[in-house]
């Protein structure tokens, strides 16, 4: 058991020595100080199990010292034993202190009595300290359990939504197919008439609903990974190529700096392409020309394994604190079009690979998204 501090306060060195002699065999850490001020200095930094406090001291007497000690919340319950000669006026004043664990020993001191009182209080202190620790642990456990419950509930809710969405997607696809078939046949029949522009609008609306539905379905469907070894640069290049409609004809520089880093990684290529695609798409819509997008890679470690850190930076408008907080939440969007699922999907995919994704901390123009992907290769 670790020793506890017992603070001994008396202006007479001889008395301090006496207390030390009496209490030495308790095996605790005795701290003798010569004034109330010294006692307070010690208490500022250290804990103690109890304070043995002489009442009559020059400068700052025992009562004054006790009053200052009591003002501190941390020391509110630290037991104080006053040492006093038999004096009625002192006893009256002690009555004024009849709160907390204040005790009195009368000089001349009977060693057995002092030792017994100190021992009892030290034990009380130990028990109380233990209790406080247990309480803290219990509290932490409760918080942890509540968090787990909330997560479980959220997962359950997501699973239910997922199931609903899968059913919805299936039924909607049949309906969308009928719209598609009818629109296509209609457009063939009225191709050269002015009304054909209406058909184009219907087609666009159809495509939008279709895309929205697929995004929501993709987000809620269980993610099954088919991992193979890929060179990550091949994946982001493909993602970039897929976005050519969004950057063709614009002033765009797509700069990649990977050093000599081995970019091979065990991932499912298709969803990871989606991650890069979603990030790059955001960059393209956040930046006015000239657009500068830079990918930078470095070696990293994640859960004691090799990993690759990929930073994708743009020179766009950047994110507000609010946006930073919510960027990975589903249905959070700052764009007028889109589902608000892009970054939520990206996070889900990266985490399914055992990786991490975050907005990099640096301020300044533009946004930097940082991904950590474990290599997961032997």
């Amino acid at each position, binding site marked *: 058991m670790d020793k506890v501090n017992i603070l001994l306060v008396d202006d007479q060195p001889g008395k301090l020595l006496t207390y030390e002699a009496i209490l030495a065999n308790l095996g605790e850490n005795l701290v003798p100080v010569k004034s109330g001020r010294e006692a307070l200095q010690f208490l500022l930094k250290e804990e103690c199990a109890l304070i043995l406090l002489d009442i009559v001291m020059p400068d700052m007497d025992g009562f004054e010292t006790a009053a200052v000690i009591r003002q501190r919340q941390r020391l509110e319950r630290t037991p104080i034993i006053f040492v006093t000669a038999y004096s009625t006026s002192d006893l009256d004043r002690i009555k004024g202190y009849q709160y907390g664990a204040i005790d009195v020993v009368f000089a001349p001191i009977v060693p057995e009595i002092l030792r017994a009182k100190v021992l009892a209080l030290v034990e009380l202190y130990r028990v109380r300290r233990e209790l406080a620790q247990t309480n803290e642990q219990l509290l932490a456990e409760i918080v942890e359990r509540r968090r787990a419950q909330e997560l479980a509930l959220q997962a359950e809710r997501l699973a239910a939504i997922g199931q609903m969405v899968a059913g919805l997607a299936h039924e909607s696809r*049949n309906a969308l*197919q009928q719209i598609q078939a009818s629109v*296509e046949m209609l457009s063939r029949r009225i191709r050269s008439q002015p009304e054909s522009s209406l058909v184009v609008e219907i087609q666009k609306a*159809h495509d939008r609903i279709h895309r929205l539905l697929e995004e929501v379905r993709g987000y809620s469907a269980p993610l099954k990974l088919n991992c193979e070894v890929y060179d990550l640069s091949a994946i982001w290049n493909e993602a970039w190529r897929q976005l050519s409609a969004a950057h063709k004809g614009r002033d765009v520089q797509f700069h990649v700096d990977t050093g000599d880093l081995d970019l091979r990684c065990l991932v499912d290529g298709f969803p990871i392409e989606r991650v890069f695609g979603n990030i790059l798409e955001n960059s393209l819509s956040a930046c006015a020309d000239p657009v500068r997008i830079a990918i930078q890679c470095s070696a990293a470690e994640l859960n004691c394994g090799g990993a690759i850190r990929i930073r994708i930076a743009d020179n766009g408008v950047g994110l507000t604190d609010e946006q930073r907080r919510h960027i990975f939440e589903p249905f959070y969007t700052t764009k007028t079009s889109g589902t608000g699922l892009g970054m939520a999907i990206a996070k889900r995919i990266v985490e399914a690979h055992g990786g991490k994704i975050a907005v990099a901390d640096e301020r300044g123009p533009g946004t930097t998204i940082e991904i950590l992907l474990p290599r997961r290769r032997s």
Partner: protein
Amino acid sequence: MNRSISIVVAEDEPVMQKYLEETLTLLGYQVLCLVASGRELIDRCRALRPKLVITDIRLPDMNGLDAAAEIYSIEPVPIIVISAFHDPEFIERAERNHVLAYLVKPIKQQDLEPTITIALSRYHEFHTMRQEADNLRQALDDRKMIERAKGLLMKRAGLDEPEAFRRLQKLARDKNQKLIEIAQIIVTAEEAYRKTI
């Protein structure tokens, strides 16, 4: 690409039937018939021997994938399925059932066109490869038969290997028959002898 390719389509949705017929015709294919059930699809395929089958997975009487498996077992033919489901299990099953393409609704003409072209050419490749494999297997069987005939000649006529082979070649030339045919005659004759003795 040969566009006068005959197709049988199974789809129970009237709008989709009309759409597929119109679109496939527009693309230059010949829609032999449109059916609305799996049973009909199998029957019509058996009778009409189309060059391509397109079927919805959800048919009123059976699963389009089961129909596809049955059709394929009668005669191999490229099959494209259309489905509103996007489940990996379905796609996996489709692969096992010799389905060459899996289209997820809603489909457009611009999806249909390349899918059919690719499915047909992939099937063609596959078919060619299978024929080559058959030819190789045949060649291997022939080689074994010729070896046996050669062995018999060496034993019966006391020839060494090149002489036995030359005699086989000469016989084929003289009788105007293939080497494998001569080899078969010799092996058969040997069997006949062995049985009389």
